[in-house]
């Protein structure tokens, strides 16, 4: 019926008041007659995340789980079981929290498993550039998971979050290896106790 309207905003100038008037009159008449159920709003961030998740292509060493069920993709966990390097045999779980304006803002990622690692501190903070200073909206969840996996195959002492572990890795890789083993098996490294994660 209204297809004849040319879709330019100035064509609408002056129409709105008439619409408001009609609507307000209807509203007065229709008082108490709202039968519409409340509708959940899906944010643009959720939709983009839906795309990321449905396209996940994880290596065998990584798996994902959704503790709140299939309809909450904004909070999930990723488990990594490195098949190479110092951390071979360990199982490490990360929590992901996604904001409603994802991918404008990077996911918040923390390591749930206490780990002896130069780039992960004992509270689970992770030093991975793409999670903070180098995050770009073109990156996705897959990229982050690969980035995390990479931290286990190639820990580096140049971006330390756990300074002691970084120093040992730099100065004495043999000792670093045995410290990692001891931590993963469940035990003390220095003053810190690590729970078993093998």
């Amino acid at each position, binding site marked *: *019926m*209204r297809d004849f*309207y040319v*879709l330019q*905003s*100035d064509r*609408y*100038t*002056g*129409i*709105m*008041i*008439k*619409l*408001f*008037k*009609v*609507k307000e009159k*209807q509203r007065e008449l229709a008082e108490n007659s709202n039968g519409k159920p*409340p*509708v*959940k*709003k*899906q*944010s*643009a961030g*959720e*939709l*983009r995340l*839906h*795309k990321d*998740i*449905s*396209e*996940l292509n*994880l290596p065998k060493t990584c798996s*994902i*789980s*959704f503790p709140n*069920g*299939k*309809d909450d*993709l904004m909070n999930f966990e990723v488990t990594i079981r490195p098949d190479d390097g110092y951390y071979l045999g360990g199982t490490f779980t990360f929590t992901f929290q996604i904001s*409603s304006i994802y991918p*404008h*803002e990077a996911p918040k990622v923390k390591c749930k498993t206490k780990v002896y690692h130069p*780039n992960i*501190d*004992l509270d*689970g*903070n992770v*030093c991975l*550039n793409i999670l*903070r*200073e180098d*995050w*770009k909206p073109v990156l996705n969840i897959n990229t982050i998971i690969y980035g995390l996996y990479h931290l286990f195959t190639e820990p580096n002492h140049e*971006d*330390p979050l756990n*300074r002691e572990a970084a120093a040992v890795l730099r100065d004495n890789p043999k000792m670093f290896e045995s410290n990692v083993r001891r931590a993963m098996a469940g035990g003390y490294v220095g003053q810190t106790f690590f729970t078993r994660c093998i």
Partner: protein
Amino acid sequence: MADATTQQSSRSRDLDKLLLRPGHLVGPAFEPGTELRDDLQKYVRILVVGAGGLGCELLKDLALSGFKNLEVIDMDRIEVSNLNRQFLFRLEDVGKPKAEVAAKRVMERVSGVNIVPHFCRIEDKELEFYSEFSIIVLGLDSIEARSYINAVACGFLEYDSNDNPQEQTMKPMVDGGTEGFKGHARVILPGMTPCFECTIWLFPPQVKFPLCTLAETPRTAAHCIEYAHLIKWDEVHSGKSFDPDNPEHMQWVYLEAAKRAELFGIPGVTYSLTQGVVKNIIPAIASTNAIISAACALETLKIASGCSKTLSNYLTYNGVEGLHTKVTEFVKDKDCLVCGPGILIELDTSVTLKMFIDLVEDHPKLLVSGASVTHRGKNLYMQAPPVLEEMTRSNLSLPLFELMDKFPKGVVHVTGTAGKGDNRQSCLRKLRVAFKGVDGITDTDMAGGA
């Protein structure tokens, strides 16, 4: 009596110049006269989102522009630091809800205006609440909140079978924003002009320091503050999350940051800088708020009355050095997931989710293979990862009509790969699904309102 009339006419003197006289910039449907002025007062309902720096200005400006039915929503309470620019608040108001005090003060000063305050989060309100307003005016300071209101307002928009927006479902928004001496005002007519999501790339990404820099090689006061906020807090308060609105938490972060700054010989950590860094605050300038709010109020009046063409569609203001202001006409993203029409698909109520997925693959406008389907936050089917595929597989044999709660129409989103051969790429598409033969889906139903 005579006094009151004089007062009334003198109060609307400037407004009358716009509303009672014809002009050459007016819209085609503009009908000047006292009836228009009265209708604006009687029938236009405006929601102001935010009762802070911009919100106070907006309420005052809109009330003085003759609008009589205003509502305001804000979840915050008044703080001492607001008082320099949020001019509706007094020292004795500290601790009270902003929305309530702002509404009361404007009603005291501008006779005849009615302002209903809502002291709550924007997410706490039902969608019905937002649908009641003629125009939504935003005085917010966060991308998240803008994105939310934008999604709500665009959610009311309906398209006809030719993908033209139906103006009676259009919920206009006027968005203001300021940062120090800079600001913007924009007009969003969903379906006509770009929505917030079409141009979200306009917002620069937040600066985030690498955690290892914070932990090992701090060089600036901001590094020390972020160390205390992001690393030290968790170390000391295991499990208790940091609340930026709790002054004790802020004080703790400030003291820790100061200790760290001393350790590394870095100057400049203050309590206000701590607040600034942690809450990402840029000092607000009262005059910027006043200028941006005035632009927004005028646009609101223009949309409602048709007394002039509206801003098309994004005004920037910069008062850092001298003054620069410019209007840019941004273009709509025709594939916008929030305001775009999406692709209309008509289905029988018996079509199962599996049949729908096959149909999406063959549909000439879609050609999306391996589709995952989501509807209003419910994931109907996920191709990957295996754990979700398994949880959603049983839906495949169910009719889509049932999965969509038996609504005659609705929006679903599909993700998959589009294109053929080497041109294959992943895509995310919006679909308007309408079920045939179910009451209430025809376009005449919508047109009946106008």
